[in-house]
């Protein structure tokens, strides 16, 4: 029998190797899955992992799909590091789209160079305002931020539905529940000619860079880390829990709100009831796949985007039901999450003496902190 034995120090080589080990396992499991379904597994793998990388347009689409995931996950990771569990980014995303989009519609059909920055600001503020609710209820009343932020996702989606059925409805749109198409000056400039890739991806890159500096270089980033790993020590050291909860929610909410606006002002170009498609939830997985590190998140976000786009390609070309893609994605995530154990542990024969080190644990603070 084998047993997992903790390493004295996290093995750096494994840090880079585990994603590939996981990928390999996924491919093996994927072969079994697709063969069981009577589909050609090699073709499915090719369509999911390789094909999207071979055309200009689908490369651009990777950026479209990856940008919001990276932007949101970067913000969430900062909170997760501090043990602040904002899992309602989907709601903040939706509200950001509403507030930012409303700015465009309020000025319709006017606009100028100032409009987009104003919309982005409004989107970020909207996301922050929505995130302020769980932050306030957590710091003031000890209410679990996981659940408050989650409940608010449903409320935000219904609110969007209400608004596009009513006040924000396109006056010339046959009363269909959609806003006007935004004026040209309210649309994000394209990044690559002839595609939908927009400057939102650049903003995501900037956010990754800023988060990197914030976490690695600044005192506050240190406080965040300590708070997450040892709340009691953090309090003795005089860090304010209130301040960390608030700043975590403001950063993640603001980025999620901005991501929402970029969706509305980018690939969609208007407000529609089905604007939120789960980026806020997928971003949580992205944050962990990226090991809560901005650079890791960048890769994880692009990988997730690849599986979505590759899954669509496989659906189109092989008539795979969309459920197959979800199962495949689920397996990939299991392997990625599971394989990470090898960073801190090694396989050994059972019975040998163990070395006493504890793995760094992430703890969602469902309970109010002391």
């Amino acid at each position, binding site marked *: 029998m084998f047993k997992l034995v903790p390493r004295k120090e996290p093995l750096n080589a494994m840090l880079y190797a585990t994603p590939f080990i996981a990928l390999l396992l996924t491919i093996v499991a994927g072969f079994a899955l697709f063969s069981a379904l009577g589909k050609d597994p090699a073709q499915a793998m090719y369509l999911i992992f390789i094909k999207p990388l071979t055309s*200009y347009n689908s490369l651009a689409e990777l950026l479209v799909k990856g940008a919001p995931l990276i932007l949101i996950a970067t913000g969430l990771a900062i909170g997760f590091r501090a043990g602040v569990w904002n899992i309602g980014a989907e709601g903040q995303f939706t509200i950001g789209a509403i507030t930012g989009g409303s700015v465009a519609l309020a000025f319709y059909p006017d606009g100028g160079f100032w409009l987009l920055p104003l919309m982005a600001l409004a989107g970020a503020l909207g996301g922050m305002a929505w995130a302020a609710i769980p932050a306030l209820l957590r710091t003031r009343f000890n209410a679990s931020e996981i659940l408050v932020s989650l409940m608010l996702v449903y409320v935000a989606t219904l609110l969007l539905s209400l608004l596009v059925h009513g006040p924000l409805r396109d006056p010339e749109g*046959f009363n269909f*529940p959609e806003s006007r198409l935004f004026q040209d000056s309210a649309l994000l400039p394209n990044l690559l000619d*002839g595609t939908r890739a927009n400057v939102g991806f650049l903003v995501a890159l900037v956010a990754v860079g800023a988060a990197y500096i914030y976490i690695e270089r600044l005192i506050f980033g240190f406080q965040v880390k300590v708070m997450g790993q040892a709340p009691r020590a953090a309090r003795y050291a005089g860090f304010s829990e209130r301040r960390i909860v608030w700043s975590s929610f403001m950063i993640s909410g603001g980025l999620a709100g901005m991501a929402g606006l970029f969706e509305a002002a980018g690939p969609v170009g208007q407000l529609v009831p089905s604007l939120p498609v789960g980026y806020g939830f997928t971003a949580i997985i992205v944050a962990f796949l990226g090991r809560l590190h901005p650079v890791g998140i960048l890769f994880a976000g692009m990988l997730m985007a690849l599986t979505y786009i590759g899954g669509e390609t496989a659906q*189109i070309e092989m*008539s795979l039901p*969309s459920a197959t893609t979800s199962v495949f994605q689920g397996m990939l995530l299991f392997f990625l999450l599971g394989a990470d154990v090898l960073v801190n542990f090694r396989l050994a024969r059972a019975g040998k003496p163990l070395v006493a080190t504890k793995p760094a644990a992430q703890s969602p603070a469902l309970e109010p902190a002391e």
Partner: protein
Amino acid sequence: MNRATRLFAGLGAALGLALAVVGGAGAAEPLKVAFVYTGPIGDHGYSYQHDVGRKAVEKEFGDKVKVSYVENVSEGPDAERVIEQLAASGNKLIFTTSFGFMNPTIKVAARHPDVKFEHATGFKTAKNVGIYNARFYEGRYIIGQMAAKMSKSGTIGYIASFPIPEVVMGINAAYLGAKTVNPNIKFKIIWVSSWFDPGKESDAAKALVDQGADILMQHTDSPAAMKLAEERGILAFGQSSDMADFGPKAQLTSIVDDWNYYYISRVKAVMDGSWKPDNVWDGLKEKMVELAPYGPAVPDDVKKMADETKAKIISGELHPFIGPIAKQDGTPWLKDGEKAQDKDLLSMNFFVQGVEGSLPK
């Protein structure tokens, strides 16, 4: 054109050339046709029925066509990519079957002038985008009449999804039909704020039955309400597809969307080069809207009445929206003998007089 684009354009051209050489070797290429659905084809409602149309196309043309579909496409940012990918991968005719695909379809169509698009239930057309829809309201008028004639309690329960014109139009048509039979008929409406949540649809159906409705109508996609009607021993009308399997005793009839002939005719038109963008809004007459076979609970006089109404609508003798009709608040809408314009129907956002409840402004 920046450098990257040029590079990729060059690669693309080379690849295209290579493909052309390979392709040229074969015989006549099958026409590639694609369908985009917003729901799972297993919804047993709206998307399912479009997929029935897809299968009809496959059956009709055999190996002269290569048909593909994508299901569960959200009406948000993903739609444009899916449609783009379909257009870029050689499909010559693409059906986008849900309202939310309208703007993405128009955008993709502008980039692919050689691909033909058909968008269901929207209002924007282009040189290569035609639109089509079914006059479901004609069927709803008939089931309104049937409901009013058969209801003992005089209360009809109506499960609605979202207050879009299509749904509002359906409620009004059913009510107007019902009123011709029983001027005191009452409609109770529940909005479930979802197209597809069987649990909630079932709960809503329960609530309506508990409040005295003995006949249910729905404008949501799952057969949950039909199932409940069967259990409670009351009656119901199906939606989109024939739901008799779920309510063998309960189903009176169902308004069935029949896209088969339309899809076949459009594919044919592309094949022989006669395709033109069109604005098709067909109804009972063209059989795009059909009534499922009457259930065992429908007595002969009701069958007769429904058949007569159907014949009159088909012959044009009867229009469900013919004046005098006032809006809910009493302001006049249609004068005596005036028929509603299609434009007004397609953008309907008010209830007619007698319907209770409110719509978002």
